[in-house]
């Protein structure tokens, strides 16, 4: 197959949107946290926990949406742990975030082993099926990519719209953004910086977990160790790449996923077969670092990101 032809196939764009979906959920989650002023490095572990609980809920007969809800609740619980330690107590967001990732990951693996002690290959569930939007899905190339996906992908796009509207068009969104830029001003308005920040971290963590659940409930139909594989860290890079704006972050996630889908297909071309496969697998991580470097000059970091707010010491 000619390399440029890859971009004209519907399957390529369909794969790109599918790969982007978990990243979109988790990136929106991280974006909400950071706009409120909290860096959430628990993202990687929370995605692992969401991947397990969503799949396990469905496996135990809660239904697919029940699994998604369980994943979201799990994520929110870890968000509560994270935000309690980092917001009112003002502990290091780096240390707590890494601690939450380690805790969520090890708890997940522990629960998996306890719940399924005897299995060598994990059981499968009946995952989300593709749901084709009538008429629209018949548009050439982009139709299947955008309108022949699983319901969770549609939900991912809806999430971006809700987050963008919520952050920029509602008083609550203004307050959250202000908590990340100028918390003293928020407090002066009589609003609780602590409440806003904790709420943002809890909701954001819930979205991260749904991103993880996408992997086990839509992209695949089973839970594997190491399946999140650094996607959380990539989402943190995507938030920076998207300059902390939902629309741009969505674009970044799709670009990134398109690149990922491209390298998978490139591996199968005669040219690609001559290159060690590890080089291809490295590319997404390199791309994330490059994105960070490219954006470093004009990054619009929320002014109070990682700055604890204590009303005592104004």
């Amino acid at each position, binding site marked *: 197959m000619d390399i440029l032809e890859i971009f004209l196939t519907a399957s390529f764009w369909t794969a790109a949107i599918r790969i982007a979906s978990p990243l979109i959920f988790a990136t929106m989650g991280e974006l909400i946290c950071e706009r409120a002023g909290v860096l959430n*490095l628990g993202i990687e572990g929370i995605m692992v926990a969401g991947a397990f609980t969503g799949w396990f809920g469905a496996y135990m007969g809660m239904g697919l949406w029940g699994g998604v809800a369980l994943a979201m609740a799990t994520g929110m619980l870890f968000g509560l*742990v994270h935000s309690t*330690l980092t917001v*009112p*107590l*003002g*502990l*290091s967001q*780096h*240390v*707590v975030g*890494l*601690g*939450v990732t*380690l*805790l969520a*990951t*090890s*708890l997940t*693996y*522990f629960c998996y*082993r*306890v719940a399924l*002690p005897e299995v060598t290959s994990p059981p499968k569930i009946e995952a989300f099926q593709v749901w084709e939007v009538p008429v629209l899905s018949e548009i050439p190339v982009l139709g299947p990519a955008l309108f022949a996906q699983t319901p969770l992908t549609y939900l991912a796009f809806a999430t971006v719209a809700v987050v963008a509207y919520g952050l920029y068009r509602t008083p609550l969104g203004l307050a959250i953004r202000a908590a990340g830029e100028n918390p003293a001003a928020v407090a002066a308005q009589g609003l609780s910086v*602590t409440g806003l920040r904790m709420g943002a971290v809890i909701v954001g963590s819930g979205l991260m977990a749904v991103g993880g659940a996408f992997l086990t409930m839509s992209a695949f139909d089973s839970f594997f160790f190491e399946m999140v*594989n*650094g996607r959380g*860290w*990539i989402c*943190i*890079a995507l938030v*920076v790449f998207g300059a902390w704006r939902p629309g741009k972050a969505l674009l970044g996630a799709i670009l990134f996923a398109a690149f990922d889908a491209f390298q998978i297909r490139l591996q199968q071309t005669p040219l690609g077969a001559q290159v*060690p496969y*590890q*080089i291809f*697998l*490295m590319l997404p*991580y*390199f791309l*994330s*670092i490059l994105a*960070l*470097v490219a954006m*470093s*000059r004009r*990054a619009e970091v929320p002014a109070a990101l990682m700055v604890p707010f*204590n*009303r*005592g010491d104004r």
Partner: protein
Amino acid sequence: MRLEPIANPSMARTLVPPAAALVATVVIASLLAMVAGGNPFRVLGLIIEGAVGSRFALLETLNRATPLIFTGLAVAVAFRAKLWNIGAEAQLYAGAVMAVVLGTGALAWPAFALLPTMAAAAMLAGAVILLVPALLKTRLGVDEVVTTLLFNFIFLLFVSYLLEGPMKDPMGMGWPKSPRLIAEARLPRIVDGLRLHWGFGLALIAAGVVWVINTRTTLGYEMRAVGQNAEAARFAGIPVGRVIVKTALLSGGLAALAGFSEVSGLKGSLTLDLSPGFGYSGIIVAMLALLNPLGVVAAALFVAGIFVGADSMSRAVGVPTYLADIMLATALLLMVLAILLTRFRILRE
């Protein structure tokens, strides 16, 4: 809710919260052991017995602590200057690769010349690995947390490529592993017949050296100043960027020694499972040690004991060995909280 600093914390104030954190960790671990169908007293007893209950167990713990001392020191040095090096895993593998490059016959030198050369080359490799994120941070303001984390994935894939390609052992029956090190490239055992190698001695020396650097040198003072308040340090005439780069070189070099010591002292060759996350566990070690280099030795022994003990407990009663990771993550979170409580009072408003 408000935090109020305590001017002169009492003895009880300083000791009770950390002790309570440890007790809470043990309680949580016991509950989880019960969930997994084990008797908590037996599970905890087996962990302690598996860690220190016999000469074999004790030596195993010391061996496991060795790489953790190196990565713990690497993290402690970096975090003290607020350089968030989460990439000790990649730096460890860089050191391991260097040990294989020089130690499999490329240099046919006697051990007294070869081993120091390998150690120095390993440190250099690890330092270079961390230099890139450090320069990106000082020159372009790119956050090093994400870059060092992503480098872990990149470097592990690179090692995987090496082990399946140029560095593959032709006698390895197709397994992705490196050739074995020559005899001169192996770190000798401290006492003949006991399975403990000089990597442990080197780790203790490294801890002493870092302690001297921290407390007795200008660099150590500058690193702390940059960590406490970079703006103030700059105002006082400290070249902040240069200090961060020096910190990175030291930190990366220390983490790489873990890889050198594992390959040259313990395993004798490089495989992809050389490190079961020693780089990440180093963060826990450093935090439990409050970033103090001598404390790192104690914390590494504690963390290694939990891991080794949990392995043997898991073999005996079938409670998953991930219990160890949960205990350590819980201990980390509760300990940072406990340290806060030793210095601040929480007031309700």
